[in-house]
């Protein structure tokens, strides 16, 4: 194979790609926040809710966990218009990512609820804590600490998943890389540069997450 790397043809597009990375990050952050909220509600209902609500929530979670993200977004983008729900591609991808993340984060947060230590709450009770005080000082800090690492992982996974948006014509990082590829045909250069952008994105995110984890939750770990 005789292939000469010609990054020069791609370098004019570096800022264009950086803009795509910024859009990918926005998608990931918003999808994560919505997904986290959905997950919290679903986890609470699954663990403590009435039976009918529990069944509804479980159906959603099981359905999402057992179908591909791409199919879910196809459904939202192409099938929902049949029911009069017409979404532009960015919104469809965002909703798909959030609903998908919500199901995963429901399972993660359920594990957090399950890990509550009854004995610590009893100790708080005998020391005279009110119910609110034991939630505030004992339960919540414990759950946050348990949930922090898996939720951080989930955020990184969502960041990777945003690349699916390219299929729907959203011009995030992969979408823009695809555009440049069809102009320059320098596939190797274009996609390796976009890979570097993803790596930079996730390493920066991981470093921030680890620093926060170490400082606030005494979680030991490192990016590498």
């Amino acid at each position: 194979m005789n292939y000469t790397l010609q990054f020069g043809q791609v370098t004019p597009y570096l800022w264009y790609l950086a803009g795509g990375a910024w859009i990918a990050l926005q998608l990931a952050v918003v999808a994560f926040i919505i997904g986290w909220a959905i997950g919290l509600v679903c986890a609470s209902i699954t663990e403590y809710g009435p039976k009918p609500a529990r069944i509804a929530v479980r159906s959603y979670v099981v359905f999402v966990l057992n179908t591909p993200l791409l199919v879910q977004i196809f459904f939202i983008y192409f099938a929902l218009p049949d029911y009069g729900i017409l979404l532009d591609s960015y919104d469809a991808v965002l909703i798909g990512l959030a609903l998908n993340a919500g199901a995963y984060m429901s399972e993660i947060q359920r594990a957090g609820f399950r890990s509550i230590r009854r004995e610590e709450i009893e100790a708080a009770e005998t020391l005279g804590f009110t119910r609110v005080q034991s939630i505030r000082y004992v339960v919540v800090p414990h759950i946050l600490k348990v949930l922090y690492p898996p939720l951080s992982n989930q955020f990184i996974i969502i960041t990777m998943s945003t690349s699916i948006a390219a299929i729907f014509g959203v011009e995030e990082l992969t979408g823009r890389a695809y555009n440049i590829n069809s102009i320059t045909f320098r596939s190797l250069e274009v996609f390796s540069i976009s890979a570097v952008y993803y790596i930079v994105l996730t390493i920066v995110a991981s470093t921030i997450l680890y620093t926060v984890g170490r400082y606030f939750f005494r979680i030991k770990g490192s990016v590498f």
Partner: protein
Amino acid sequence: MPYLEIDNLSADYGKVPVLQDINLAVERGEIVSIIGPSGSGKSTLLRVLTGLLKPRAGSVAVAGEKLRYDSPKDLRRAREKFAIVFQQFNLFQNMTALRNVTIAPTIVQKRKAAEVEAEARALLEKVGLSHRIDAYPDEMSGGQQQRVAIARALALKPDILHLDEVTSALDPELVSEVLDTIRLLADDGMTMMIVSHEMGFVREVSSKVVFMADGRVVEVGPPEQIFDNPQTQRCTDFVSRILRH
């Protein structure tokens, strides 16, 4: 009049009766140890007294005043007067040793932080942990954690300290450091109710030993009586079985 008076106290776990007609009096400064086979209700008695399990019948009186465990006000009073230390320490994992000790006086009694902290430091020094003040529970040995738990229980200045098998979860070489701490409290005249399997220790520190079986108090007496000259068959059997090895 005894400081603590337990009168015909009964309690159930679901439908299973675990305490039946318990009668017991504890004077101020007394150290009452409760021994007996597992499942005899020893720990349950401490759980009822400290408000973790509602009694079904009977009464508890402190300094002549009845405590009603179904009244939130009385429950608060019980929790201020009675402190408990658990077998598994049950320290707050997200707090340092110092914070474990200061938190209850700060948020429950709403006392001044500086004053509480000075007292907590003194308490931790007393249990021999002034060098571990900033350590988290998962950084400490079981013996150290249990001593923090004792300091935490003392921080609210309770009238009675309940110790629920506090050495049972410890490695053998760590037992003595916790027992030494309890001896120190005994020397200070702290009123204690101790559930323990450390018979040598029980015999040494107790002013009174209670033998329980099947949720009932079977025999009460000074340690010499319970260990050397028990008056009931069940107590005789139990003592001969545990002293054999």
